[in-house]
């Protein structure tokens, strides 16, 4: 009960923020009823998926300040668990998703335990290294389809809620929207919770945190496992939504970076940051890709624009858009 109360307690945000958030939430709920193209729908689903990825990343990367650039390995574990179980043993999504999450969390403990002895850059690079090793393994492991990946066959009639197979995209949309709201309320609880406060303390100074009696190593491992569970759940959803997974898509470094980048662009360590980041980057990426990518000679131009934005954000406002908003507010108040 206490937990629920804390999860729905947004009282520390200004009223205007809550109004905007409520309006956005209402828009998300009614979006499928509004006129839209298939492309817009796909972009919205991508946006919701990346928001949840970003929320997961935010627990360890934002509140904990540990830059993790290997989240894609957990997306991959979630996606592959679901796909393999569905193809080989006919296991429904709702069973394979928790199993995928459990496997991913188990793996995160195994690599998190040694990794969190490292700090800063060293940790970030080590997460990339583990992620690339796992990708290499999946690319040559024939049980999971090696480099060609896996294709999920269509099971019986649609709509199929057990296996998450639908002809219309709005079914997928509402399922991922449910994930999104669960994630949002969980994170709202998380930031008030004991572990949330511990993590922020560790972010400011790990030595001080240790001297206050916080077990920094264990707190970081727990936050890392939380982040992993989020990411693996959406990974499972990704497998069902795309029907087709390849190591390069679900485990590549690009995905890891994208996840971290969205959270960072919106503002790492704030509740709404990852959502803002995803809301900007996902549409930008898919529309720019669709407009420019198709033209000959302009290959890569979308990524050039996109990387310029990253560099500008990193150079001038490393706290992201949320940091910008906070700064403007303070300026007005003074």
């Amino acid at each position: 009960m206490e937990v629920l109360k804390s999860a729905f307690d947004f009282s520390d945000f200004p009223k205007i923020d809550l109004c905007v958030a409520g309006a956005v939430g209402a828009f998300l709920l009614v979006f499928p009823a509004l006129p839209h193209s298939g492309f817009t729908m796909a972009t919205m689903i991508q946006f919701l998926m990346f928001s949840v990825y970003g929320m997961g990343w935010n627990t360890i990367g934002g509140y904990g300040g540990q830059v993790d650039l290997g989240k894609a390995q957990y997306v991959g574990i979630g996606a592959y668990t679901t796909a393999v179980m569905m193809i080989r043993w006919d296991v429904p999504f709702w069973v394979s998703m928790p199993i995928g999450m459990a496997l991913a969390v188990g793996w995160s403990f195994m690599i998190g335990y040694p990794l969190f002895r490292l700090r800063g850059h060293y940790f970030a690079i080590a997460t990339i290294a583990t992620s690339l090793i796992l990708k290499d393994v999946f690319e040559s492991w024939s049980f999971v389809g090696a480099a060609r990946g896996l294709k999920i066959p269509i099971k019986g009639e649609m709509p199929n809620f057990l296996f998450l197979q639908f002809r219309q995209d709005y079914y997928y949309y509402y399922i991922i929207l449910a994930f999104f709201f669960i994630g949002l309320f969980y994170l709202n609880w998380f930031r008030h919770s004991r572990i949330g406060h511990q993590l922020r303390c560790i972010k400011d100074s790990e030595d001080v945190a240790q001297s206050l009696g916080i077990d920094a190593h264990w707190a970081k491992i727990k936050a890392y496992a939380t982040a992993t569970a989020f990411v693996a759940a959406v990974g499972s959803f990704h497998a069902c939504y795309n029907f087709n997974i390849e190591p390069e898509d679900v485990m590549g470094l690009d995905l890891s970076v994208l996840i971290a980048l969205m959270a960072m662009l919106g503002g790492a360590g704030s509740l709404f940051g990852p959502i803002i980041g995803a809301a900007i980057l996902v549409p930008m990426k898919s529309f720019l890709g669709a407009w420019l990518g198709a033209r000959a000679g302009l290959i890569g131009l979308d990524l050039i624009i996109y990387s310029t934005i990253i560099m500008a954000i990193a150079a001038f406002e490393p706290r992201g858009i949320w940091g910008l908003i906070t700064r403007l507010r303070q300026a007005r108040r003074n």
Partner: protein
Amino acid sequence: MEHLLIEITKALVSALFMGMVFGLVALGLTIIWGVMDIVNFAHGEFLMIGMYAGLLTALILKVDPLFGLPVAGVVGFLLGVACYYGLVKFLLRGPMIAQLFGTFGLMLFLRNVALMVMGADPQSAHQGVLVGKSFVIGPGIVIELTKLAAGGLSVVAFATTWWLMNRTEIGRALTATALDAQAARYMGVPTEKMNALAWGLGGVTVGMAGALLVNFWPVDPNVGLLFTMIAFTTVALGGFGSIPGAAFAGLIVGLVINIAPIWDSIHAFLGPTSFQGGQLHQFKYSFVYLAYFLIMVLRPRGLFGWKY
């Protein structure tokens, strides 16, 4: 049996020359890291640009890419200094996460500019005085002249850099900046310029490494990430900020990458029926990543490091 020995010797020789060039790739990273405590994710992209610089010089002048070495060095220097004044200077004010993402953005930027300008196809050098020439030392062991020249020139580059860092005024100023930037500033060292110089020097060494590497490694815009990871591993193993460390660790990393081919040849010798352990070469780079992981966990200071 003899065949096996020849295979292994071949792999070892190849490991040796590759390792020398890897050491040179890592040298630039270790200078930047040592002086400024910043990671450069775009390091592999610097290398890629050095490779293209060497290759284009070779194609235009119709000589070996080796003769593109000075051009690649100059391009690398300009690139390094431009990156420092254009981006890194601003990143230094922010937290560590900003440095990570800033250089990551730089990496994406350089890669896609190269993609736009040069196209996605891998290119390699096919002509020149040394290409295709080789000499034989012992039965079946062939050394390609390009690899030998690349190895030799990396040794020269290492010696020069070591001399520059340890025996000259500039090197002393760089070391002072690395040890304590504030104190160095009080002593009249222009630390801002030293930082730029560190990026320039890093660019020179990695650019030259690119011109050497393109002799036996085809270049495409996506080649960078692999070498960024190899360079990180080499620097981690050698110790952050150590020049002899980079040289020595480069050789070890060259060996590690060649574990898989050596293992595969032993396996081919034992025959396919004995046990199913073949096809390890698919994991050739995983060994590098694993090596990084193990070094960081077991000995984060590296072999010769003084800073971590």
